[in-house]
Protein backbone atom coordinates (compact mmCIF):
# COMPACT_ATOMS: atom_id res chain seq x y z
CA UNK A 1 0.00 0.00 0.00
CA UNK A 2 1.31 3.42 -0.84
CA UNK A 3 0.35 7.00 -1.45
CA UNK A 4 2.56 9.10 -3.74
CA UNK A 5 1.53 12.73 -3.62
CA UNK A 6 3.17 15.78 -5.16
CA UNK A 7 0.88 18.79 -5.22
CA UNK A 8 0.96 22.53 -5.78
CA UNK A 9 -2.24 24.46 -5.29
CA UNK A 10 -3.24 28.01 -4.50
CA UNK A 11 -6.64 29.20 -3.26
CA UNK A 12 -6.71 32.89 -2.51
CA UNK A 13 -3.98 33.62 0.05
CA UNK A 14 -3.36 29.97 0.89
CA UNK A 15 -0.66 28.09 -0.99
CA UNK A 16 -0.52 24.34 -0.54
CA UNK A 17 2.68 22.45 -1.37
CA UNK A 18 3.00 18.79 -0.52
CA UNK A 19 5.53 16.15 -1.55
CA UNK A 20 5.15 12.83 0.16
CA UNK A 21 5.43 9.11 -0.30
CA UNK A 22 4.13 6.92 2.47
CA UNK A 23 3.41 3.23 2.86
CA UNK A 24 2.00 2.85 6.39
CA UNK A 25 -1.52 1.39 6.78
CA UNK A 26 -2.56 4.70 8.34
CA UNK A 27 -1.00 8.10 7.75
CA UNK A 28 -2.01 11.16 9.73
CA UNK A 29 -2.23 14.54 8.01
CA UNK A 30 -1.78 17.29 10.60
CA UNK A 31 -1.39 21.06 10.65
CA UNK A 32 -3.09 24.21 11.91
CA UNK A 33 -6.66 24.85 10.80
CA UNK A 34 -7.09 26.75 7.54
CA UNK A 35 -3.82 25.39 6.15
CA UNK A 36 -5.62 23.28 3.53
CA UNK A 37 -5.77 19.75 4.96
CA UNK A 38 -9.30 19.18 3.73
CA UNK A 39 -8.37 20.62 0.33
CA UNK A 40 -5.62 17.98 0.07
CA UNK A 41 -8.21 15.23 0.66
CA UNK A 42 -10.55 16.89 -1.86
CA UNK A 43 -7.73 16.90 -4.43
CA UNK A 44 -7.01 13.21 -3.83
CA UNK A 45 -10.74 12.42 -4.13
CA UNK A 46 -10.95 14.43 -7.37
CA UNK A 47 -13.37 17.06 -6.01
CA UNK A 48 -10.79 19.86 -6.37
CA UNK A 49 -8.35 20.07 -9.24
CA UNK A 50 -4.78 20.90 -8.15
CA UNK A 51 -2.87 23.57 -10.06
CA UNK A 52 -0.23 20.97 -10.84
CA UNK A 53 1.26 17.75 -9.52
CA UNK A 54 0.79 14.01 -9.46
CA UNK A 55 -1.29 11.71 -7.24
CA UNK A 56 -0.96 7.92 -7.23
CA UNK A 57 -2.34 5.38 -4.79
CA UNK A 58 -1.03 1.80 -4.81
CA UNK A 59 0.55 2.56 -8.17
CA UNK A 60 -2.73 3.73 -9.73
CA UNK A 61 -2.29 7.24 -11.10
CA UNK A 62 -5.32 9.41 -10.26
CA UNK A 63 -3.98 12.76 -11.37
CA UNK A 64 -0.93 13.81 -13.36
CA UNK A 65 -0.86 17.34 -14.70
CA UNK A 66 2.26 16.65 -16.81
CA UNK A 67 0.49 13.77 -18.58
CA UNK A 68 -2.81 15.68 -18.77
CA UNK A 69 -4.49 13.00 -16.66
CA UNK A 70 -7.32 13.80 -14.26
CA UNK A 71 -9.65 10.95 -13.35
CA UNK A 72 -13.17 12.07 -12.38
CA UNK A 73 -14.11 11.40 -8.73
CA UNK A 74 -16.50 8.55 -9.56
CA UNK A 75 -13.74 6.29 -10.90
CA UNK A 76 -11.05 7.06 -8.28
CA UNK A 77 -12.54 4.62 -5.74
CA UNK A 78 -11.81 6.89 -2.80
CA UNK A 79 -13.70 6.01 0.38
CA UNK A 80 -14.22 9.53 1.66
CA UNK A 81 -15.56 10.01 5.20
CA UNK A 82 -16.46 13.69 5.33
CA UNK A 83 -16.18 15.75 8.47
CA UNK A 84 -19.88 16.63 8.14
CA UNK A 85 -20.88 13.03 7.18
CA UNK A 86 -23.00 14.18 4.20
CA UNK A 87 -25.54 11.41 4.54
CA UNK A 88 -28.26 11.80 1.92
CA UNK A 89 -31.23 13.25 3.83
CA UNK A 90 -33.88 11.79 1.50
CA UNK A 91 -32.69 8.19 1.90
CA UNK A 92 -32.89 5.90 4.89
CA UNK A 93 -29.68 4.51 6.40
CA UNK A 94 -30.09 1.31 4.37
CA UNK A 95 -30.24 3.25 1.08
CA UNK A 96 -27.34 5.47 2.12
CA UNK A 97 -25.21 2.37 2.75
CA UNK A 98 -26.27 0.80 -0.55
CA UNK A 99 -25.66 3.96 -2.63
CA UNK A 100 -21.99 3.41 -3.40
CA UNK A 101 -22.18 -0.37 -3.22
CA UNK A 102 -24.77 -0.48 -6.01
CA UNK A 103 -22.52 1.67 -8.22
CA UNK A 104 -19.36 -0.38 -7.59
CA UNK A 105 -18.28 -3.27 -9.75
CA UNK A 106 -18.96 -6.65 -8.12
CA UNK A 107 -15.34 -7.78 -8.66
CA UNK A 108 -14.10 -4.68 -6.78
CA UNK A 109 -16.19 -5.28 -3.66
CA UNK A 110 -14.35 -6.59 -0.66
CA UNK A 111 -16.96 -6.25 2.07
CA UNK A 112 -20.69 -7.04 2.02
CA UNK A 113 -23.46 -4.97 3.57
CA UNK A 114 -24.13 -7.56 6.31
CA UNK A 115 -20.44 -7.71 7.21
CA UNK A 116 -20.04 -3.92 7.24
CA UNK A 117 -23.20 -3.48 9.32
CA UNK A 118 -21.96 -6.03 11.88
CA UNK A 119 -18.45 -4.53 11.87
CA UNK A 120 -19.81 -1.07 12.69
CA UNK A 121 -22.70 -2.20 14.90
CA UNK A 122 -25.34 -0.27 12.97
CA UNK A 123 -27.87 -3.06 12.36
CA UNK A 124 -30.53 -1.34 14.47
CA UNK A 125 -30.25 1.88 12.43
CA UNK A 126 -31.02 0.55 8.95
CA UNK A 127 -34.61 1.84 8.75
CA UNK A 128 -33.90 5.23 10.31
CA UNK A 129 -33.64 8.58 8.50
CA UNK A 130 -30.27 10.38 8.77
CA UNK A 131 -31.88 13.36 10.52
CA UNK A 132 -32.81 11.11 13.47
CA UNK A 133 -29.28 9.77 14.06
CA UNK A 134 -26.96 10.93 16.84
CA UNK A 135 -23.48 12.23 15.94
CA UNK A 136 -21.77 8.91 16.62
CA UNK A 137 -24.41 6.90 14.77
CA UNK A 138 -24.23 9.17 11.72
CA UNK A 139 -20.43 8.92 11.70
CA UNK A 140 -20.54 5.12 11.75
CA UNK A 141 -23.07 5.08 8.90
CA UNK A 142 -20.86 7.47 6.92
CA UNK A 143 -17.88 5.14 7.46
CA UNK A 144 -20.01 2.14 6.41
CA UNK A 145 -21.19 3.91 3.27
CA UNK A 146 -17.57 4.68 2.32
CA UNK A 147 -16.39 1.08 3.00
CA UNK A 148 -19.23 -0.42 0.94
CA UNK A 149 -18.40 1.64 -2.16
CA UNK A 150 -15.50 -0.78 -2.81
CA UNK A 151 -12.79 1.84 -2.21
CA UNK A 152 -9.05 1.32 -2.81
CA UNK A 153 -8.19 3.73 0.02
CA UNK A 154 -9.91 5.70 2.74
CA UNK A 155 -9.83 9.45 3.32
CA UNK A 156 -11.02 10.42 6.80
CA UNK A 157 -11.47 14.10 7.65
CA UNK A 158 -11.35 14.53 11.44
CA UNK A 159 -13.78 11.68 12.09
CA UNK A 160 -13.83 12.42 15.83
CA UNK A 161 -14.98 16.05 15.65
CA UNK A 162 -18.32 17.04 17.17
CA UNK A 163 -18.51 13.82 19.22
CA UNK A 164 -18.51 13.46 23.00
CA UNK A 165 -15.69 11.57 24.74
CA UNK A 166 -17.46 8.19 24.80
CA UNK A 167 -18.40 8.39 21.10
CA UNK A 168 -14.86 9.49 20.23
CA UNK A 169 -13.43 6.38 21.86
CA UNK A 170 -15.98 4.24 20.01
CA UNK A 171 -15.11 5.71 16.58
CA UNK A 172 -11.39 5.56 17.37
CA UNK A 173 -11.73 1.81 18.00
CA UNK A 174 -13.53 1.45 14.67
CA UNK A 175 -10.67 3.26 12.91
CA UNK A 176 -8.10 1.02 14.66
CA UNK A 177 -9.99 -2.08 13.59
CA UNK A 178 -10.17 -0.86 9.99
CA UNK A 179 -6.42 -0.20 10.14
CA UNK A 180 -5.64 -3.66 11.61
CA UNK A 181 -8.27 -5.92 10.06
CA UNK A 182 -9.07 -4.46 6.63
CA UNK A 183 -6.15 -4.15 4.25
CA UNK A 184 -6.88 -0.63 3.04
CA UNK A 185 -4.59 2.41 3.29
CA UNK A 186 -5.99 5.34 5.25
CA UNK A 187 -5.14 9.02 5.09
CA UNK A 188 -6.46 10.59 8.26
CA UNK A 189 -6.78 14.28 9.14
CA UNK A 190 -6.48 15.14 12.81
CA UNK A 191 -5.52 18.07 14.99
CA UNK A 192 -5.20 16.04 18.18
CA UNK A 193 -1.61 14.90 18.95
CA UNK A 194 -2.90 12.26 21.39
CA UNK A 195 -5.20 10.79 18.76
CA UNK A 196 -2.41 10.72 16.18
CA UNK A 197 0.07 9.15 18.63
CA UNK A 198 -2.39 6.38 19.30
CA UNK A 199 -3.12 5.64 15.65
CA UNK A 200 0.17 5.85 13.81
CA UNK A 201 3.80 6.87 13.77
CA UNK A 202 3.57 8.09 10.20
CA UNK A 203 2.74 11.80 10.35
CA UNK A 204 2.57 14.20 7.45
CA UNK A 205 2.71 17.83 8.50
CA UNK A 206 1.34 20.82 6.57
CA UNK A 207 2.79 23.25 5.64
Amino acid at each position, binding site marked *: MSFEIALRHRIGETAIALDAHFTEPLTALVGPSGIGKTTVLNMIAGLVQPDCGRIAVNGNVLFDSAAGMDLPPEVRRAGYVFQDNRL*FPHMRVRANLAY*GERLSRPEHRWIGQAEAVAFLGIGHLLDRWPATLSGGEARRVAIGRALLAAPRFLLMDEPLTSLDAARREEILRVVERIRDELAIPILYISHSPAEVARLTSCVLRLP
Partner: protein
Amino acid sequence: MTLPTSAEWDIVALSLKVSVAAMLACLPVAYALAWLLARRRFPGRMLLDAAVHLPLVLPPAVTGWVLLLLFGRTGPVGAWLERVLGITLMFRWTGAALAAAVMALPLAVRAMRLSIEAVDRRLVDAARSLGAGRIRAFATITLPLSLPGILAGAVLGFARSIGEFGATITFVSNIPGQTRTLPLAIYTGLQIPGTEMQVARLAAVSVVLSLVALLLSEWLVRRAGGGRAHVL
Protein backbone atom coordinates in the same frame (compact mmCIF):
# COMPACT_ATOMS: atom_id res chain seq x y z
CA MET B 1 -77.25 31.71 -8.77
CA THR B 2 -77.72 28.36 -10.54
CA LEU B 3 -75.10 25.76 -11.42
CA PRO B 4 -73.06 26.34 -14.59
CA THR B 5 -74.65 25.19 -17.87
CA SER B 6 -73.06 22.52 -20.04
CA ALA B 7 -71.68 25.21 -22.39
CA GLU B 8 -70.02 26.81 -19.37
CA TRP B 9 -68.59 23.46 -18.21
CA ASP B 10 -67.10 23.15 -21.72
CA ILE B 11 -65.30 26.44 -21.13
CA VAL B 12 -64.01 25.16 -17.79
CA ALA B 13 -62.87 21.90 -19.41
CA LEU B 14 -61.07 23.83 -22.17
CA SER B 15 -59.36 26.02 -19.57
CA LEU B 16 -58.18 22.94 -17.65
CA LYS B 17 -56.95 21.27 -20.86
CA VAL B 18 -55.01 24.39 -21.91
CA SER B 19 -53.53 24.86 -18.43
CA VAL B 20 -52.48 21.22 -17.97
CA ALA B 21 -50.85 21.20 -21.43
CA ALA B 22 -49.13 24.52 -20.67
CA MET B 23 -47.82 23.17 -17.37
CA LEU B 24 -46.48 19.95 -18.94
CA ALA B 25 -44.75 21.93 -21.71
CA CYS B 26 -43.38 24.45 -19.27
CA LEU B 27 -41.97 22.04 -16.64
CA PRO B 28 -38.93 20.50 -18.39
CA VAL B 29 -37.91 23.81 -19.99
CA ALA B 30 -38.32 25.67 -16.71
CA TYR B 31 -36.31 23.06 -14.78
CA ALA B 32 -33.47 23.09 -17.32
CA LEU B 33 -33.34 26.91 -17.19
CA ALA B 34 -33.55 26.90 -13.38
CA TRP B 35 -30.66 24.41 -13.16
CA LEU B 36 -28.53 26.44 -15.60
CA LEU B 37 -29.15 29.66 -13.68
CA ALA B 38 -28.61 28.03 -10.27
CA ARG B 39 -25.56 25.88 -10.99
CA ARG B 40 -23.62 27.16 -14.01
CA ARG B 41 -21.52 30.24 -14.57
CA PHE B 42 -21.34 31.14 -18.25
CA PRO B 43 -21.14 34.28 -20.35
CA GLY B 44 -24.59 35.70 -21.00
CA ARG B 45 -26.06 34.24 -17.82
CA MET B 46 -27.41 37.63 -16.71
CA LEU B 47 -28.96 38.11 -20.13
CA LEU B 48 -30.62 34.68 -20.00
CA ASP B 49 -31.90 35.44 -16.50
CA ALA B 50 -33.40 38.72 -17.75
CA ALA B 51 -34.91 37.07 -20.84
CA VAL B 52 -36.59 34.37 -18.70
CA HIS B 53 -38.16 37.09 -16.57
CA LEU B 54 -39.36 39.20 -19.53
CA PRO B 55 -42.90 37.72 -19.71
CA LEU B 56 -43.35 38.74 -16.07
CA VAL B 57 -42.69 42.43 -16.74
CA LEU B 58 -43.61 42.97 -20.41
CA PRO B 59 -47.16 43.99 -21.28
CA PRO B 60 -48.80 40.61 -22.09
CA ALA B 61 -49.92 42.04 -25.44
CA VAL B 62 -46.26 42.41 -26.39
CA THR B 63 -45.52 38.80 -25.43
CA GLY B 64 -48.53 37.72 -27.52
CA TRP B 65 -47.31 39.80 -30.46
CA VAL B 66 -43.81 38.29 -30.27
CA LEU B 67 -45.38 34.80 -30.22
CA LEU B 68 -47.41 35.83 -33.28
CA LEU B 69 -44.22 36.92 -35.09
CA LEU B 70 -42.40 33.67 -34.21
CA PHE B 71 -45.20 31.08 -34.35
CA GLY B 72 -47.57 32.62 -36.91
CA ARG B 73 -48.05 30.87 -40.27
CA THR B 74 -45.26 32.97 -41.79
CA GLY B 75 -43.08 33.21 -38.66
CA PRO B 76 -39.79 31.27 -38.65
CA VAL B 77 -40.89 28.67 -36.07
CA GLY B 78 -44.54 28.56 -37.13
CA ALA B 79 -43.68 27.96 -40.80
CA TRP B 80 -41.23 25.19 -39.82
CA LEU B 81 -43.78 23.50 -37.51
CA GLU B 82 -46.40 23.52 -40.26
CA ARG B 83 -44.06 22.30 -43.02
CA VAL B 84 -42.15 19.63 -41.07
CA LEU B 85 -44.59 18.45 -38.42
CA GLY B 86 -47.91 19.59 -39.91
CA ILE B 87 -48.76 21.48 -36.72
CA THR B 88 -50.41 24.89 -36.63
CA LEU B 89 -50.87 26.75 -33.39
CA MET B 90 -52.84 29.68 -34.76
CA PHE B 91 -56.40 29.95 -33.40
CA ARG B 92 -56.01 26.51 -31.76
CA TRP B 93 -56.09 25.49 -28.13
CA THR B 94 -52.44 24.41 -28.51
CA GLY B 95 -51.57 28.04 -29.27
CA ALA B 96 -53.41 29.12 -26.12
CA ALA B 97 -51.39 26.53 -24.19
CA LEU B 98 -48.12 27.88 -25.65
CA ALA B 99 -49.05 31.44 -24.64
CA ALA B 100 -49.95 30.26 -21.12
CA ALA B 101 -46.71 28.25 -20.86
CA VAL B 102 -44.57 31.24 -21.83
CA MET B 103 -46.38 33.47 -19.34
CA ALA B 104 -46.01 30.84 -16.58
CA LEU B 105 -42.30 30.21 -17.29
CA PRO B 106 -40.79 32.94 -15.06
CA LEU B 107 -42.86 31.86 -12.04
CA ALA B 108 -41.93 28.21 -12.51
CA VAL B 109 -38.23 29.01 -13.02
CA ARG B 110 -38.13 31.14 -9.87
CA ALA B 111 -39.66 28.44 -7.67
CA MET B 112 -37.43 25.70 -9.09
CA ARG B 113 -34.27 27.75 -9.01
CA LEU B 114 -34.67 28.50 -5.31
CA SER B 115 -35.10 24.82 -4.52
CA ILE B 116 -32.07 23.79 -6.65
CA GLU B 117 -29.93 26.44 -4.95
CA ALA B 118 -31.07 25.02 -1.60
CA VAL B 119 -29.63 21.57 -2.46
CA ASP B 120 -26.25 21.28 -0.72
CA ARG B 121 -23.58 20.82 -3.41
CA ARG B 122 -21.46 18.92 -0.90
CA LEU B 123 -24.04 16.12 -1.11
CA VAL B 124 -23.43 16.00 -4.86
CA ASP B 125 -19.67 15.78 -4.16
CA ALA B 126 -20.34 12.90 -1.76
CA ALA B 127 -22.34 11.09 -4.44
CA ARG B 128 -19.52 11.60 -6.96
CA SER B 129 -16.93 10.18 -4.56
CA LEU B 130 -19.20 7.14 -4.04
CA GLY B 131 -19.07 6.36 -7.75
CA ALA B 132 -21.88 8.38 -9.32
CA GLY B 133 -21.17 10.23 -12.56
CA ARG B 134 -22.50 13.75 -13.09
CA ILE B 135 -25.82 12.63 -14.55
CA ARG B 136 -26.48 9.96 -11.93
CA ALA B 137 -25.55 12.35 -9.11
CA PHE B 138 -28.03 14.84 -10.56
CA ALA B 139 -30.78 12.24 -10.92
CA THR B 140 -30.36 10.71 -7.46
CA ILE B 141 -29.49 13.80 -5.38
CA THR B 142 -30.30 17.18 -6.96
CA LEU B 143 -33.54 16.14 -8.69
CA PRO B 144 -35.28 14.43 -5.74
CA LEU B 145 -34.10 17.06 -3.26
CA SER B 146 -35.48 19.86 -5.44
CA LEU B 147 -38.85 18.10 -5.83
CA PRO B 148 -40.73 20.58 -3.59
CA GLY B 149 -39.67 23.37 -5.96
CA ILE B 150 -40.76 21.36 -9.00
CA LEU B 151 -44.20 20.80 -7.47
CA ALA B 152 -44.51 24.43 -6.39
CA GLY B 153 -43.43 25.61 -9.85
CA ALA B 154 -45.88 23.27 -11.53
CA VAL B 155 -48.89 24.37 -9.49
CA LEU B 156 -48.00 28.07 -9.62
CA GLY B 157 -47.58 27.73 -13.38
CA PHE B 158 -50.93 25.95 -13.60
CA ALA B 159 -52.69 28.65 -11.57
CA ARG B 160 -51.08 31.36 -13.70
CA SER B 161 -52.22 29.55 -16.87
CA ILE B 162 -55.83 29.41 -15.67
CA GLY B 163 -55.80 33.22 -15.45
CA GLU B 164 -53.85 33.93 -18.65
CA PHE B 165 -55.58 36.58 -20.81
CA GLY B 166 -53.50 39.20 -22.64
CA ALA B 167 -50.93 37.13 -24.49
CA THR B 168 -53.59 34.54 -25.40
CA ILE B 169 -56.09 36.96 -26.95
CA THR B 170 -53.28 38.73 -28.85
CA PHE B 171 -51.65 35.52 -30.11
CA VAL B 172 -54.57 33.19 -30.87
CA SER B 173 -57.62 35.49 -30.60
CA ASN B 174 -60.91 34.60 -28.86
CA ILE B 175 -62.28 31.52 -30.65
CA PRO B 176 -65.15 29.67 -28.90
CA GLY B 177 -64.20 26.05 -28.21
CA GLN B 178 -60.53 26.60 -29.13
CA THR B 179 -59.04 29.59 -27.35
CA ARG B 180 -61.95 31.03 -25.33
CA THR B 181 -60.75 30.05 -21.85
CA LEU B 182 -62.34 31.22 -18.59
CA PRO B 183 -60.91 34.77 -18.54
CA LEU B 184 -61.70 35.30 -22.22
CA ALA B 185 -65.25 33.98 -21.73
CA ILE B 186 -65.72 36.33 -18.76
CA TYR B 187 -64.44 39.24 -20.84
CA THR B 188 -66.71 38.27 -23.77
CA GLY B 189 -69.70 37.94 -21.43
CA LEU B 190 -69.11 41.44 -20.09
CA GLN B 191 -69.45 42.83 -23.65
CA ILE B 192 -72.98 41.38 -24.01
CA PRO B 193 -75.92 42.75 -21.95
CA GLY B 194 -77.92 40.18 -19.93
CA THR B 195 -75.10 37.69 -19.28
CA GLU B 196 -74.35 38.85 -15.73
CA MET B 197 -75.26 35.48 -14.19
CA GLN B 198 -73.07 33.59 -16.65
CA VAL B 199 -70.17 35.90 -15.86
CA ALA B 200 -70.72 35.45 -12.13
CA ARG B 201 -70.80 31.63 -12.44
CA LEU B 202 -67.58 31.58 -14.50
CA ALA B 203 -65.90 33.96 -12.06
CA ALA B 204 -66.94 31.72 -9.15
CA VAL B 205 -65.47 28.67 -10.90
CA SER B 206 -62.21 30.61 -11.49
CA VAL B 207 -61.94 31.49 -7.82
CA VAL B 208 -62.53 27.87 -6.76
CA LEU B 209 -59.98 26.51 -9.29
CA SER B 210 -57.28 28.96 -8.23
CA LEU B 211 -57.90 28.33 -4.55
CA VAL B 212 -57.78 24.55 -4.99
CA ALA B 213 -54.53 24.84 -7.00
CA LEU B 214 -52.88 26.96 -4.32
CA LEU B 215 -53.99 24.73 -1.44
CA LEU B 216 -52.97 21.62 -3.39
CA SER B 217 -49.50 23.04 -4.03
CA GLU B 218 -49.13 23.98 -0.38
CA TRP B 219 -50.10 20.45 0.67
CA LEU B 220 -47.80 18.77 -1.91
CA VAL B 221 -44.83 20.94 -1.02
CA ARG B 222 -45.31 20.43 2.73
CA ARG B 223 -45.45 16.68 2.23
CA ALA B 224 -42.38 16.60 -0.03
CA GLY B 225 -40.48 19.05 2.15
CA GLY B 226 -41.09 17.16 5.39
CA GLY B 227 -43.14 20.01 6.91
CA ARG B 228 -40.48 22.68 6.45
CA ALA B 229 -41.12 23.91 2.89
CA HIS B 230 -44.10 25.99 1.84
CA VAL B 231 -45.39 28.01 -1.12
CA LEU B 232 -47.75 30.44 0.58
